[in-house]
């Protein structure tokens, strides 16, 4: 029985070779964090759609936010002898062992989204993701241009200590610090939530006497900006008209606000990034050429039709 199996396999393989068929479909294992929020499910769906387009046999595993599920999925990929593994890590630490197993099996590992913390950098080929710092810089550059370099800004920070909050702040300040007349006059954490953004903006409105002298609001994500817009409207202010509002994410609700002109601009956090990730993986499988440690996916900024008119 076993022999017969082996035989058919060999015959089939040989016939494939004889027929001169193109190299067999590339099999890629993709271990995703989970399906929390809006962005991640859209990212998962795009990875599956793009794989179909590229003719890739994608094995998709949802770790449901659990590290042990993710490790199990990666080990399963190794056992299935996939051609490459893409990981969107649940956590930063604890990867050394399983990555070494992948390396021993000769399977290249790519990171999407977050980074991992390993001493041996050769365990992964590269990381392909958006750059929070770049998003902050883009928002800062837009605000600098729209305000012609003169603006008192209030800032709604993300959760204290979170990587996107730290990097978006740094990126934004890197640009706005070039302009002596752009100042961040108030800055507080709205915890990345609509409720938080609304609460903080309510307090800002009171402590600045109805945002007197304020020209811009920079929020580290759209949800907080949506809350800020509500707070401003409830206080009788005109967001988008009397104030420049720039944030990051470009969620569906923000699209509506931009269309209504109640927000000014939003940097898109792309979920359709399969088209950036797969070519890198496929090219590497072909030529095994060494890649930079981090391949950044370009950001995109959307603004209201006629800003500040």
């Amino acid at each position: 029985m076993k022999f017969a199996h082996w035989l058919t396999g060999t015959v089939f393989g040989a016939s494939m070779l004889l027929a001169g068929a193109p190299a067999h479909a590339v099999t890629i294992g993709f271990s995703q964090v989970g399906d929390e929020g809006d962005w991640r499910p859209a990212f998962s769906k795009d990875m599956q759609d793009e794989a179909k387009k590229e003719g890739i046999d994608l094995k998709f595993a949802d770790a449901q936010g659990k590290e042990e599920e993710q490790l199990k999925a990666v080990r399963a990929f190794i056992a299935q002898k996939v051609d490459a593994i893409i990981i969107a890590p649940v956590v930063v630490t604890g990867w050394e062992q399983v990555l070494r197993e992948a390396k021993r099996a000769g399977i290249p590992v790519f990171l999407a989204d977050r980074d991992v913390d390993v001493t041996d950098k050769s365990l992964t080929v590269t990381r392909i993701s958006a750059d929070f710092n770049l998003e902050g810089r883009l928002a800062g550059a837009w605000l600098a241009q729209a305000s012609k370099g003169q603006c008192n800004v209030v800032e709604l920070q993300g959760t204290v200590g979170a990587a996107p909050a730290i990097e978006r702040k740094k990126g934004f300040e890197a640009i706005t610090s070039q302009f002596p007349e752009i100042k961040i006059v108030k800055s507080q954490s709205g915890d990345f939530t609509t409720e938080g953004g609304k609460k903080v903006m309510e307090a800002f409105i009171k402590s600045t006497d109805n945002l007197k002298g304020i020209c811009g609001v920079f929020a580290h994500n759209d949800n907080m900006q949506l809350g800020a817009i509500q707070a401003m409207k409830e206080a009788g202010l005109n967001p988008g008209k009397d104030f420049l509002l720039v944030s990051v994410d470009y969620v569906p609700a923000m699209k509506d606000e931009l269309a209504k002109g109640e927000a000014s601009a939003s940097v898109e956090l792309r979920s359709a990034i399969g088209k950036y990730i797969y070519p890198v993986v496929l090219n590497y499988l072909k030529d095994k050429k060494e890649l930079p440690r981090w391949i950044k996916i370009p950001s995109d900024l959307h603004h209201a039709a006629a800003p500040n008119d």
Partner: protein
Amino acid sequence: MSTPTPGTPASPKPAAEQAQPSALKALLRHRLVWPILALVLVLIVDAIISPGFFQIRIVQGRLFGNLIDILYRGMPPAMIALGMAVVISTKGIDLSVGSIIAVTGAVMAWRIHEGDSHYVILLTALCVGLACGLWNGFLVSVLEIQPIIATLILMVSGRGIGLMINLLYGGTNPSFTSPLLQGLSTGNLGLVPTRLVVGAVMIVLVWLLVRRTAFGLFLESVGGNAKSAWLSGVSSRLILLSAYLISGLMTAVAAIILTADTHTSDPVTSGLYSELDAILAVVIGGGSLAGGRIYLDGTIIGVLVIQALTTSILTSGLPPEYNLVVKAVVVLIVLLLQSANTRAAVVSLLARRKG
């Protein structure tokens, strides 16, 4: 955190305190004096660091100012804390309130997308809260699971349930518009924000139930000594069950206000850590986690202390990295002030210096 002792201590009086006039002594021994003092202290600090903190104006036909904000933002936590006070008086605890907010909010957004009448949704939301309370109460009173574990189950699973409800209708953009619900949350009646009226009505209802019927006595007797309460003919099981029902219902009221405030269902973050603030408010108000006591007035002052603190941190311009540290330090000071042991130690230390 230090174990808070009630405001009416029976500790031995040091010499210095006995010398004080008796009216002042009686006042200092009133259980509400320390929480109120804490609130006044926070407000005084506000007046110093941000001029115009107490300014109240009329904007968009409603009262507008930091003090209004404290009441406005404090209303949902007050609802949760009152429910928590009821549960804590029975020697219980309800860790699931944040998750109840998540589930209730998700159900509201879902039913609005399905096109239910918004009056029906209001009732549905209250029923969701009651159902969650029934579940907690069933685990605690019928299955006799420890309250902290029993309510942990819903605390952990509730946000997942909320996300699953979002998936029922796609849920990638679970925002909604509802004149009725948003009116309750962000509208105003005359000059007064509607939610303050809703809050006042709920406070009166809970007060009537707890202080004008025998229910409050039953709660405290079950919390104080369940066995002797049972022996004197109080059905502990029914009392426990109704305590969790009240907590679920009050949390649902908070959930309606919070969800309609941002008119978005966000099961991952809505009401996050609200259980901790609620427990803290009860404790600042003089409640004891050992049960047997319920102070509705103290609890509300506790909520105001926490909310005044939050509002002042937001207006102070302090970097957000310090938010939690400042809050922790102030809470510690408040709890130390309340502790009769600490006060006695300070007084005797001062007396020794003088002597």
